[in-house]
């Protein structure tokens, strides 16, 4: 399969390891990974902060970059960016775009997947041959859980990982408090939510808290780092791309 990889602006710029892992994992599974070089950002932050005119060029650029019929599927290591493409681009295009943009958005939307969806639903694989001999707990990010409805797909992928010690996160479906600009505009409420999330993460004794979104992980990881908790964060793709021959070495910085 020819898969278009959308790195996301956050992944490309701040968390490249998660994107590298995604690319390597898909290539290892025998797929052709293409990276349209003109890609930038999906515009989620704009829309979620109340701006719908400003991201029109971003939405158009995304549709242009990934619209090519030779790309069978578009994948991104982010539930919230996939949610943006699937649920918000249409809104922006309908309101402030033209007919061409609306058509482009509809085409791309139909073939866009978050990583776990692509693996389980499209590529029909749960055992990706990964090896990760550490205690891990999984935080289902809100947008993957309630916007994309990925359900237990990430957990099915994790359960198939060799030597993993997967432990359940208490109150897993509670928001970590990130919410994009929410963490800035309502920093104190966000912090209160983060504190409870960190308490639940540390209660599991896990070495790693994983999730499908670098943004939420940046939030949880930033908090864990501040309180010098033992646990660290790692993107789901990084666990799935760790193998016996080239294992992820946990002492490295977790991004």
């Amino acid at each position: 399969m020819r898969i278009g990889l959308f790195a996301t602006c956050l992944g490309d710029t701040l968390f490249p390891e998660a994107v590298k892992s995604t690319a390597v994992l898909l290539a290892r599974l025998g797929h052709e990974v293409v990276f349209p070089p003109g890609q930038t950002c999906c515009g989620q932050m704009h829309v979620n902060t109340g701006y719908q005119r400003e991201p029109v060029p971003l939405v158009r650029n995304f549709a242009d970059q990934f619209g090519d019929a030779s790309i069978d599927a578009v994948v991104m290591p982010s539930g919230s960016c996939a949610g943006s493409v699937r649920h918000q681009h249409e809104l922006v295009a309908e309101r402030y775009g033209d007919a061409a943009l609306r058509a482009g958005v509809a085409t791309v939307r139909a073939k866009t997947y978050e990583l776990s969806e692509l693996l389980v639903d499209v590529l029909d694989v749960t055992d990706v041959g990964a090896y990760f001999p550490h205690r891990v707990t999984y935080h289902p990010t809100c947008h993957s859980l309630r916007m994309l409805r990925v359900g237990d797909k990430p957990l099915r992928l994790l359960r198939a990982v060799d030597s993993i010690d997967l432990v359940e996160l208490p109150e897993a479906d509670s928001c970590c408090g990130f919410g994009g600009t929410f963490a800035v505009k309502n920093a104190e409420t966000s912090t209160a939510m983060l504190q409870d999330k960190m308490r639940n993460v540390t209660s599991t004794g896990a070495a790693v808290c994983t999730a499908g979104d670098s943004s939420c992980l940046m939030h949880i990881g930033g908090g864990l780092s501040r309180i010098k908790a033992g646990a660290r964060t790692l993107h789901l793709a990084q666990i799935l791309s760790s193998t016996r021959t080239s294992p992820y070495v946990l002492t490295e910085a977790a991004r």
Partner: protein
Amino acid sequence: MSATFLGMPATPPRSPYGTGNLRGDRKFPAAAHDELRNEQLRSNLGRATHTIRAKRLHVTGELPDWEELRDAGSAIKTDTMNRLPELLEELERNVTARGGTVHWARDGVEANEIVARLVRETGSDEVIKVKSMATQEIGLNEHLESLGITAHETDLAELIVQLAHDKPSHILVPAIHRNRDEIREIFLKEIPGVDPSLDNVPAHLAGAARAYLREKFMTTKVAVSGANFGIAETGTLSVVESEGNGRMCLTLPDTLITVMGIEKVLPRYQDLEVFLQLLPRSSTGERMNPYTSMWTGVTPGDGPQTFHLVLLDNGRTAALADRIGREALNCIRCSACLNVCPVYERAGGHAYGSTYPGPIGAVLTPQLAGMHAAKDDPNSSLPYASSLCGACFDACPVKIDIPSLLVELRHQHTEQSGTTAEKLAMKAAGAVMSRPKVYTAAQKASRLGRALARDGKLPALPPPLNGWSDSRDTPAPPKQSFRAWLASAEGAAAMREASAEHTRDQQQEDGK
């Protein structure tokens, strides 16, 4: 998100906004700042919301057709809004035909005047009240008090709030921010003649309220209520409750005055079969609440012989003019969205400054009362008081897409705010990120942040980002972006090796 054309965001002029308790005096972050420091409040809210979440999940999970009920409930409410004029006229006709009198109120001020006039006409200087969001919204008690009419709240939680000279903080349980010890203190201090040995056992506290209010129920001649539903087809009104204070108020006085928002009408009596399943399971997590009363006009020999229904607009038509935002009018006030909301759980109901707190309040309040109707309007902060986690949408029995409504209201806010620093920044970001070359250059520039970093972390960030860095470390940008890595020899080699691994695996498979 609906596939229909959404149109431009709705902007004024619309119908006039509502009056009353629909605006706080501070923006949400400032109000939450104080509430978050109240450890007792956070512990009370945390315990109560976790209790109710488990109960709700248990009783909604019991019904195999819960989703079908939600679909029906949602469609009935949407259909109701589409046909609101004819349904209200039908309701009026049927209430009148059964001996009731219908009044219309453009806003809270007018509704208060109508109720006060009706009370005075009875000669009474006191009323007993069933818990009602509509009368809380319009500030009826305060208005009556200013005219020398005493309003006795009879719902236990409303009574606690009234005795403590406090404000409600929850739609269903206005005293949710109080625990049993605090309630005991309030009763000991405020209830005349209460047994001084009263302990903190909830059943005993409820018993103290029973004893206190008994005499009021037996002697007060006028009651004021809200309504959960008003059936157009039959003229039947309904109040859903637990304690029996509703039955007392609806049955024992000579005169009953019901204040109902115009959006509470339902087309058919049959529709109750849906809402009597959705509402109790979503609100108190019960299969059915202990008591529901339904009455149609006046029944000779049974209950109040004078019945007035006040139909209240107070900003509802302003909300109705917004094709997207009007979905908030479908709310049946169950409070499930409050109980599952992580923001509400921490900040509490007072931080919203309105009669309607929580997720539904954050979309309803700005639509009823406006976001730009006061200087530096506190209501403009409400749509941002959410991480958009979506738990409210899943819990809503009539499937109101609250996260999408929040995003819509944020957009309306930015559209009406003129040029702001944030808008300019968003524009600039949009311009940079839509031009890949400029974007790549900006990415490279961000590497400069590495010079500021210590141990791979950035130092405290300047405003407006300081709230973030107060409690979170920010990683320094990595040496190389993903795209730079992919274009590098190292990246190319890694990708080649990954593909080669697949080929080797494949050959091994084939060789077996």
